[in-house]
Every structure is written in structure tokens, then in C-alpha cells.
């Protein structure tokens, strides 16, 4: 189970990394007469018998009701590894749309793969930042104790009860309405790191505080190690906790990013994230007539499920709860 989930995650990362070669079309290009076009089906057989995989050209037969039919006159064979794309078809036969098209006739498959870059990127970067901050502050608090410890943990308690989603919205509003995806990316990753570190810090502090009483820590101090050096000696004890926390933070931040983009305060416009893409599906009519617009939600579900499986069910439920209660004692 865990192996399969891990493989799935690697596959998603690879997809995101190789987006320009995997996708058949640009994510930003609107195709004429392809608004809400359904996903294309791959065929290997027709009346004449078996063939190499091919598709049929899509034809719009009713513009206002958006009815498409497959044009069975000619087979359109799939071309592999040509024009720098993994799979493509003759441009004369129209765009290749694996997952259908959105309201503007853009390739949803390409948008999904490019969206993975933003969604996964922000989550991984935010989680790394939170881990770094949490390990550092929690380590210092646990290793030194006393007033510094109280101060850091009080700040952590404060941050924990902040209405984070609201604050992200207010902060987003301080920037002009249209800002570049790169700016949204860094803004969001920074905010996530700043919002998520307290949980990490609490766990690390609890672990480091118990390690501090061990003989090897006393030995290090007796040998004249400074406070900083002692912390670097103690921190490896929290490695297992940090690893699990990292795997658990990513789905949480993935969901946070999607929610913020979904309500219109994150990635949107030409290259949105998964949450931004879901904004298009939200209208009930779109959901009914173009259910493929819900594919980003499916992707979100699969990635979160895979990450939770990798972390282990017991860890994903117990770790944070147990450690935070332990940290309070």
C-alpha cells in the first residue's frame, strides 16, 4: 500500500516536472469551437479492424447546447515523441484533449499538469519553510529552556489560534488585484511557513527537552560545546518526527492553497493552480454538463490520500495530537 502510494506521488511529481513535454497543448491557448469539449476517447479498433491507438476528430454540432460528436470519417493516429511533445496529433485535426476543455476551449489536461506545479510547489515549499522555522525555534526553546523557551512557546500558542485563512485574504488584498503568479507563489509559501511552524516547534521542543537531560548532552556540555553546538547535537533526535510532520503538512497546505485559490484570492487567470481551476467547475450547470471540470478535485483527493498513506494512518491521526499534548506538559 505504502509503496504504491509513494509511486503515485513520484508519478505526480514527474508529471509536474516534465509538464512542457507531457502535455499536448499549451495550457493558456484557447481553441476555437472547443468550449466545454468533452474528453477525447482513444480507440484501437474500428469497422476495419485493429489499429495503433488513434482518436477521432471532435466536431461541434450545436454551438449553444455544446454538443460534440466524433467525426468517424477519418482516423487520427497518435504521434509519439514528435514536435517535442510526448503525444500529439496532426494539428489540422484540431487539438488533442485528453481531459476535455474548459469554458474558453483551453486544454484541461495541460492546465491540470501545469496546475500541479503551482499546487505541489507551494505546498512543498511552505512545508519546508515551516519545518525549518519550527525545528530551529523548537530546538532553541527545548535546548535552552527558561525565559526564551516561554517566549517562543507563547508566540507559538498565539499563532496557533490565528484565523489564518482570513489573514491570508487580508494580506492578499494589500497587493494589487492582478499580480504575477510568481509573486502569489512566494507570498503564499511564506505565509504558509509562518502559519504552520508552531505545530512543528511544539513537537521538536518536547523531544529536544527530553534529550537535553540525557548523558550525551551533558557530555557535550562538559566538553565545552556552546549552546548552538548542543542544539545541533540534540536535533537529530527529532528527525523521525520531522519526517512525518513534513508528509502531513503537505496535504494540509495543498488544501489550504486550493481553498484560497478557489475563493479567488490565490492563483487564477491564465495559469491557475488546482484550486483556481476548480473555481470554473463551481457553477451547478457547469458541474452537470461538464463534469470533467471536477478533475482537479479528483487529483487533490488522490494526492492527499497517497500522502496520508505514506505517512501511515496512525501517524496522520495521532502524531500531532499526542505530541502537542506532550509539549504542553
Amino acid at each position, binding site marked *: 500500500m505504502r509503496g504504491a502510494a509513494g509511486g503515485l506521488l513520484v508519478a505526480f511529481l514527474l508529471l509536474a516536472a516534465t509538464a512542457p513535454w507531457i502535455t499536448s497543448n499549451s495550457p493558456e491557448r484557447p481553441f476555437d469551437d472547443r468550449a466545454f469539449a468533452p474528453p477525447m476517447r482513444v480507440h484501437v479498433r474500428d469497422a476495419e479492424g485493429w489499429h495503433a491507438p488513434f482518436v477521432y476528430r471532435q466536431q461541434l454540432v450545436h454551438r449553444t447546447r455544446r454538443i460534440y460528436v466524433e467525426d468517424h470519417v477519418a482516423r487520427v493516429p497518435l504521434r509519439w515523441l514528435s514536435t517535442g511533445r510526448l503525444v500529439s496529433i496532426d494539428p489540422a485535426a484540431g487539438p488533442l484533449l485528453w481531459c476535455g476543455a474548459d469554458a474558453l476551449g483551453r486544454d484541461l489536461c495541460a492546465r491540470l499538469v501545469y496546475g500541479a506545479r503551482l499546487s505541489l510547489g507551494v505546498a512543498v515549499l511552505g512545508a519546508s519553510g515551516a519545518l525549518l522555522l519550527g525545528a530551529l525555534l523548537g530546538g532553541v526553546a527545548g535546548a535552552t529552556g527558561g525565559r526564551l523557551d516561554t517566549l517562543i512557546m507563547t508566540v507559538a500558542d498565539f499563532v496557533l489560534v490565528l484565523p489564518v*485563512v*482570513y489573514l491570508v485574504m*487580508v494580506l492578499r*488584498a494589500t497587493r494589487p488585484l492582478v499580480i504575477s503568479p510568481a509573486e502569489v507563489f512566494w507570498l503564499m509559501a511564506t505565509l504558509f511557513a509562518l502559519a504552520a511552524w508552531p505545530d512543528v516547534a511544539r513537537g521538536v521542543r518536547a523531544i529536544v527537552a527530553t534529550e537535553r537531560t540525557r548523558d550525551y548532552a551533558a557530555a557535550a556540555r562538559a566538553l565545552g560545546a556552546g549552546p548552538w553546538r548542543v542544539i545541533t547535537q540534540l536535533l537529530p533526535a527529532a528527525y523521525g518526527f520531522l519526517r512525518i510532520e513534513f508528509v502531513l503538512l503537505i496535504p494540509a497546505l495543498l488544501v489550504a492553497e486550493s481553498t484560497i485559490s478557489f*475563493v479567488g484570492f490565490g492563483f487564477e487567470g491564465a495559469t491557475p493552480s488546482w*484550486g483556481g481551476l476548480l473555481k470554473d467547475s*463551481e457553477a451547478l450547470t457547469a458541474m*452537470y454538463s461538464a463534469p470533467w471540470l*471536477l478533475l482537479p478535485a479528483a487529483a*487533490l483527493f488522490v494526492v492527499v490520500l497517497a500522502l496520508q498513506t505514506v505517512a501511515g494512518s496512525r501517524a496522520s491521526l495521532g502524531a500531532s495530537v499526542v505530541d502537542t499534548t506532550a509539549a504542553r506538559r
Partner: protein
Amino acid sequence: MNHATAAQVIRRVVAALVLVLSVSTAAFTLARLAPGDETTADVMEGVDAETIARKRERLGLDRPFPVQLAHFTWDLLRLDLGESASYDRPVAALVAERGANTARLAFAALLLATLVGLPLGVVTGAYAGTWVARLLSTVSIAVLACPPLVAVLALLYIAATTGWMSVATGDLLVPSLALGLPVAATLERLQSQATQDAMASPDLLAAAARGIPPLRLVWVHAARQSLRPVLGVYGIVIGSLFSGSMAVEFATSWPGLGRLMLDAVQFSDVRLVAGCVFAGGICLAVGNLVADGLRTLVDPRVRDLV
């Protein structure tokens, strides 16, 4: 309640109040820094300059920012949240009304999660290994990976294609299911684990040896023991309900605090933004205090140590 506990409670309440006040002030400052103000929409609609000037004066926008901030903070200390420019109503009334809606949704979701999650968790924990327990656990693990955003879209899709559920605005079923089901799965998994641990404990073995009937063993003895770890998670759950309700409110047009906040930010209604953050902070702080209180009630060790 002894003196030490009382002092502890008072200290927590004061800390929470300070936090809420400072976060609201920060929200006010940030929202003021944002481009545009309450009259931007009027300017774009071509309202004449004199009306706009009057509105700016009424809202105090003609004064320098430090003065505005001082006024805001002073009002806040007297628990006066001011007037919403876009709704022409007192912010306090608006926030209370919408906050009540969000609270209603969150409470329904929490109730649903508790009523569904805890009993199922006892079943899967006590009868682990049977096919019923395996099936329920699998479903639960899948639902656990459905954040409210995914859950609400899936439910809306089911409702739109089958017509089983009403999707009318104001109908509580879809939003509370979307918000409550992931929480129900969390509680189910925790309760299951806790019940398994309890069933394996020596005192349960002793109770079984004394001839206590199996049903009583599971639903009274094991359930009571497993209460503690599960109650501990309620504080975290309240926080997640609060942030998850944003997506649900947006997708189902639920007239809650999240939607109000969205509108407030979009209209740069600064007083309303600060008011929403104030209400959100209060909700979270109360949730945390209640959760800690619950934990203290069920776990004497925490009581002794705080």
C-alpha cells in the same frame, strides 16, 4: 475549581482577548494599506464628487491614518466595531448575524461527525478484522482524504446529477455533510484506534474475566477509556471546521462569516474586514478554551500539571 485553576482560566481568557484585539487592529491596518477604499466602487460607478466627499468625511477617510487607527482601536476597546460602508449597517450586527450562520453550520457538522464517527469507531475498533470493520475503515480512510473543498464539490455533483439532495441556498444538508464527513472520518479513525488500545488493556481483560457481558464491555468499559484521546482532538477539529467552512460557504452560497469576509475584502470595507477577523478570532479562541477545558475534565493529569 480551586484557585490555581481559576487563575489559569483567567490568564487564558485575558491572553485570548489581547490576541483577538491585536489581530483585529493588524487586519484594520493591512486592509487600509490595500489599494482602494470604501469609495472606490462609487468612483467607478461615476457618483458625483460631492457625495463621495461627504461619504469620505462620514467614514473618517479624510483624516490621516494614525487618527483613523486610534479611532478604530478606541471603538474596539469599547466593543464598538463601527459601521459597514458597503452594507450601511453596524458591523457588530452584521457579523453577529453571519457568525451565527457559520456557527450553525459548524455545530451541525460537528454533531453529525460525533454521532456518525464515534459509534462507527467503536464498532471498527472492537470488531477489528471482521469484514464490516474492514469495509468501514476503508471508507473512512477515503473520506479522510476528502477535504471540505473536495467533499462539497463531490456532494454538489451527486446532488446535481441524482437530485437526491436539495441544493437550494440555505439548505443545511449539503454544507453540513461536506464539512462534517471528513471530521466524522477523523473521529472514527481515532475512536477505532483508542477502542483497540482499550480492548487490549489488562483491566478490560480482567473485566472480561469477571464475566461482564461483551456488549457492556465494549460500549461502557472500553468506550469510557477511549474517551480521553478522542476528546483531545476536538480543539484541533474546531479550528479545521472554521477554515474548512470557507470553501463550503463559497460553493453553496451559505450566508456565513466566510462569505461576508470575502465580500468585505472585495469591497475594501475596512471596518467590516476587521470585524470579521475579530469574530473569527473570538470563535477560534472560544473553541480552544472549550477544548482545553474538556481535556482537563477528562484527563486529571493535565489538570495537575497546568
